């Protein structure tokens, strides 16, 4: 039975359970809902949960475990000799799976009878051709062991599915019957439902946490591989970024980190004052009409794809800065520069700072402002001394969010500041010159992972080390922000 049907049956059973549970609870109190411990709907929900949760849980578990288990069994059928030169057991097994899917398709489309599918032999049939006819293309001819393994695979899947259907339905029925059995007036259905909801919320929260953990772990694994091939001291303390796929690369994070921080700094220099002032104007001075027009307009900035900002940097801002600032001041003649990327990124970040700060400033109670006005303070004194301090934790949060966006941004940097890493051997002057081309960590992560990559070479693996370092830095930034906010709160709340 297809899984979809199974799910629908469970849901239907749950719906029936809801109605029956409700009625049974009412009946047990002689139709008087006041005698029940909980509202009748809680008894219904309790039965529904008892049907759905074990059954769906079992279903998910089964679907996860079955393929792995079958693969394991089938893999034994492939003799060492059947694995071609240069291939691995894994590759052969994926062939087996493809053939099995192909056979399934063929049977479904009527190109092959069920019996044929399980009895054909490579000696008598050109399996590759037959499967090609139903749209499953195979890279090579099918060996006898592979075909037999595929047939076995199908059989086992079929039996597995049958057992799964039986088991899942049994679980659903058991839940149905057992929860109905306890449905009596005295049963605390409300508390049970409450607990189930709590557990569901906890599961959702832990999925989020576990995903983060999984990401970090996978990066950690590759990073370890990298550091086995490349000394960590050179990575963290070297001053040169010069990857060379023939070997002997210099892979230091410092020049990239410098570019990242410099560009982000300029971006924040643009975004924080403009965003904050815009927010203050919007929430404190603008009338409802101006606000209703201007606020969405500012927020549109947040919806523009970063590649469009990148083009803006490349075509407009870069040449502008070069022609009117860099060249007259004799600071450089490249349109790609830290300043270009920084300014454009800053523009992109304005709505992040402004719309968050705006919400936060609006959340400061009117009573605070009244208190200040009542003492004879002007509007701007009130904002500076009461509203902004009261909103500061939120504003710091908004700025940090903008900062982590800036650190992670890639497109604008590629098009605005170029892809050449900062060069420490050319002296401090060039490092701090905002009209010099530079690049960031994220850009280099992309460029190390695009094109022909060899996942054993340090030049590729360095991307993971870069990513992990960046992750740690943003994490540190967030922790710092939390600390600042907490310290500030202690003082003021």
């Amino acid at each position, binding site marked *: 039975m297809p899984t979809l049907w199974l799910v629908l049956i469970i849901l239907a059973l749950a719906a029936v359970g809801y109605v029956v549970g409700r009625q049974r609870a009412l009946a047990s109190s002689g139709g008087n809902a006041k005698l029940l411990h909980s509202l009748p709907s809680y008894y219904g929900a309790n039965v529904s949960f008892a049907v759905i949760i074990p059954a769906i849980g079992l279903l998910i578990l089964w679907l996860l475990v079955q393929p792995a288990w079958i693969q394991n069994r089938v893999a034994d059928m492939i003799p060492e000799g059947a694995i071609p030169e240069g291939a691995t057991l894994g590759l052969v097994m994926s062939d087996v799976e493809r053939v099995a899917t192909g056979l399934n398709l063929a049977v479904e489309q009527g190109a092959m009878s069920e019996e044929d599918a399980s009895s054909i032999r490579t000696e008598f049939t050109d399996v590759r051709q037959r499967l090609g006819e139903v749209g499953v293309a195979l890279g090579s001819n099918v060996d006898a062991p592979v075909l037999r393994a595929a047939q076995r695979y199908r059989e086992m899947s079929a039996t597995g599915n049958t057992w799964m259907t039986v088991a899942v339905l049994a679980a659903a029925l058991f839940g149905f019957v057992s929860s109905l059995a306890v449905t009596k007036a005295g049963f605390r259905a409300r508390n049970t439902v409450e607990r189930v909801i709590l557990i569901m919320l906890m599961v959702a929260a832990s999925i989020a946490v576990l995903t983060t953990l999984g990401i970090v772990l996978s990066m950690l694994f590759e990073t370890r591989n990298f550091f086995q091939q490349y000394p960590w001291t050179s990575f963290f303390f070297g001053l040169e970024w010069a990857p060379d796929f023939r070997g002997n690369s210099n892979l230091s994070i410092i020049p990239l980190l410098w570019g990242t921080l410099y560009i982000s700094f300029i971006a924040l220099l643009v975004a924080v004052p403009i965003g904050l002032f815009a927010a203050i104007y919007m929430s404190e001075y603008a009338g*409802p009409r101006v606000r209703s027009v201007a606020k969405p307009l500012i927020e549109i900035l947040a919806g523009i794809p970063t590649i469009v900002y990148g083009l803006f940097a490349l075509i407009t801002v870069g040449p502008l800065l070069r022609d009117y600032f860099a060249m007259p001041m004799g600071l450089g003649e490249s349109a790609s520069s830290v300043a270009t990327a920084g300014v454009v990124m800053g523009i992109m970040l304005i709505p992040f700072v402004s719309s968050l700060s705006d919400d936060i400033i609006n959340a400061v109670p009117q009573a605070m402002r009244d208190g200040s*006005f009542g003492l*004879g303070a002007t509007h701007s004194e009130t904002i500076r001394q009461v509203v902004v301090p009261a909103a500061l934790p939120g504003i710091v949060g908004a700025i940090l969010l903008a900062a982590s966006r800036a650190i992670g941004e890639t497109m604008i940097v590629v098009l605005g500041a170029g892809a050449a890493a900062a060069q420490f051997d050319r002296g401090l002057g060039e490092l701090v010159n905002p009209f010099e081309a530079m690049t960031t960590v994220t850009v280099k992560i992309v460029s190390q992972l695009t094109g022909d990559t060899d996942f054993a070479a340090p030049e590729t693996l360095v991307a993971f080390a870069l990513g992990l370092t960046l992750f740690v830095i943003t994490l540190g930034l967030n922790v710092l922000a939390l600390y600042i906010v907490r310290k500030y709160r202690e003082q003021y709340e």
Partner: protein
Amino acid sequence: MNDMRLTERAVDSKDVKIAARKVQVFYGETHAIKDVDVDIDDKTVTAFIGPSGCGKSTFLRCINRMNDTIDVARVEGDIHLDGEDIYNPKVDPVQLRAKVGMVFQKPNPFPKSIYDNVAYGPKIHGLAKNKAELDEIVERALRRGAIWDEVKDRLQEPGTGLSGGQQQRLCIARAVATEPEVLLMDEPCSALDPIATAQVEELIDELKQNYSVVIVTHSMQQAARVSQKTAFFHLGYLVEYGETGQIFTNPKDSRTESYITGRIG
């Protein structure tokens, strides 16, 4: 004869601090204050009484133009402070509010330290030349607000961490720190225990020496204890205004009498 009239007039013009004529307040469509005429004397305590929602706070906020901060509110009529129309476009509401201080119905300390809460007004208006002077002003204000003993060891702690009644007294201290000429107090004792209430009433009595105090209260006893004049509001009208003794012992209007004796409220 002539002399007598002169002295009488001199007394009158010196005594009236705030004169309101035909004041109307609208909140959008709601007509919250209707045709209120009232003369509030200098160096007196005036009590506003009346059932909840009758417009006491609204009228109080007209006197220091706090209604300006409410978008939907519209004020009509004349209010004169020391003979000067406060709704004249030339008048700066910011300066007006420095002269007419206010204690709000709900305590609203700033999310700053207790010290900074009280120092806020004096700092803005440059009342202290140096830190020592500011310290002195803060201490005096906190003493007058009857809260000094409770907070003198924790001046740097946040004002929002105080109890409701302490916050209310902090707000009173904050308001008197700027030395206003008129102090508007909207139910300043609603969250206070009898001891703190007595202390605040003592403060009001003391302020009366130099200032004019307007106090909104729901406690008849308090109105009778602290005020010389009483105004009774009902459904947006100023029903009766006069000597406190007369209002409580011999009200002219039947609505005043019903309210005081507890029949409407």
